């Protein structure tokens, strides 16, 4: 498990670094349209995110009541 964590964190850090570099390069070279695209993606995902948050709240309340 410890080896798995080290591998995963390494991959994640490298991917985030590459992504940050890509975003930085895109912004510095005049990219602008993705803001609209990402807002569309957010609008698409937003209901599911709200649904997941509501489910988590319900489960949390159930656990709290059971513990009490």
């Amino acid at each position, binding site marked *: *498990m410890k080896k*798995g*964590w080290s591998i*995963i*964190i390494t*991959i*994640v850090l490298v*991917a*985030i670094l*590459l*992504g*940050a*570099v*890509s*975003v*930085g*390069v*895109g*912004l510095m*070279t*005049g*990219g*602008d*349209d*993705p803001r609209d*695209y*990402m807002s569309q*993606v957010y609008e*698409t*995902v937003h209901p*599911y*995110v709200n649904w*997941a948050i509501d*489910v*988590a709240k319900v*489960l949390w309340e159930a*656990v709290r009541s059971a513990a009490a």
Partner: protein
Amino acid sequence: MYEEDRQTALAMYVKMFEDAEDEQALIQELISPTRQAVIVARAYNAKERKLQVEAQSREDLGEIDDETTPDFVLAIDRIYQSAVPLRKAAPAPLADQFSLFEEAELPEEEEPAPLPDEQPLPDEEPAVDAPPPELPQEAPEEPEEALPTEETAEEAAPAEDAAEPEEGAPAPEAEESPEQGAGDKVDNFLMDFSIENDELAQADEPEEARQTEPAAETAPEGEPAGEAPETVPDGESAESKLSADAADEIGEPAAQGARKAVVPLLILYILLAIPVTLVCVALLLIPALLLLALAVGIISVGSATLMGAFGGFPVFADLMIILGLALIILALGLLVLWTFVWFIGGPIVGLIRGVISLGAKWCYKEVAA
């Protein structure tokens, strides 16, 4: 078997081969790696060795008379003492009889004797299955022929083995080593097993059939004289299976301690532990499944972003931004997914293992055998 003791045994066998002047003869003396593995396994007591942790000069194989010396070392040393002196004494007549210049003469003198009766090479395999009346004629001839070359010495061995039980030839019996008594037990033990692909399997045949096996089994084991390097792996594989139960069958006392279940306590523990464990697992599964849902959601968004990057952005700068974002989102999704895997494999599996080990600790107790 402890690694240190294994190395000791291997070192003793290596020294045995180094001291032996005729390795082929020594291999015949040892008969088979499996037999040696059984001998060592019978002489090895792991619990006793645990108590003898103090360092011993195992490399000095010359005099082994200390009472604290492990039994398996003594067993190998007995084999060493019985096998190596024989080999050292053997070359004396050979040096007198043969030389590089006499080789051309000797075969001419000795060839006419065996050839009129039977050819030497076809005798090897039929010797095992040969009918009893023919064996007395072959047995006296073959040991004499075995001396000139090593090959004939190897090939004559199966015939001798086959001839022993039936006619009781005096010459092979006179060479029996002092460990023959223990060797008989080993032979009796090996009779109960069939060896296939370096693995021992207990034979289910009746005893009548087993009594006919030894001659047939010892003959093929003696044939591959070039198997000396395989002594170690064969011994390991056989010893790992035999050390515990097989050695006990031969006559060693049973294990000193045995774990016995306290049945009422075990039943009570199971009745309590199963519901509690199920509740705890269910509680742990809730956050685990939430993590899984979150990971799936994040990876879905990342995949959608990545696919959209190649669809509607002709400008390279926009493409780079979208690719970068997709990469970051997928990396976060991978992290959450791994957290889910860790949650399943760590706390939940650990809880179940802990409950089982706790039950083994509470509900089992050691009882002296």
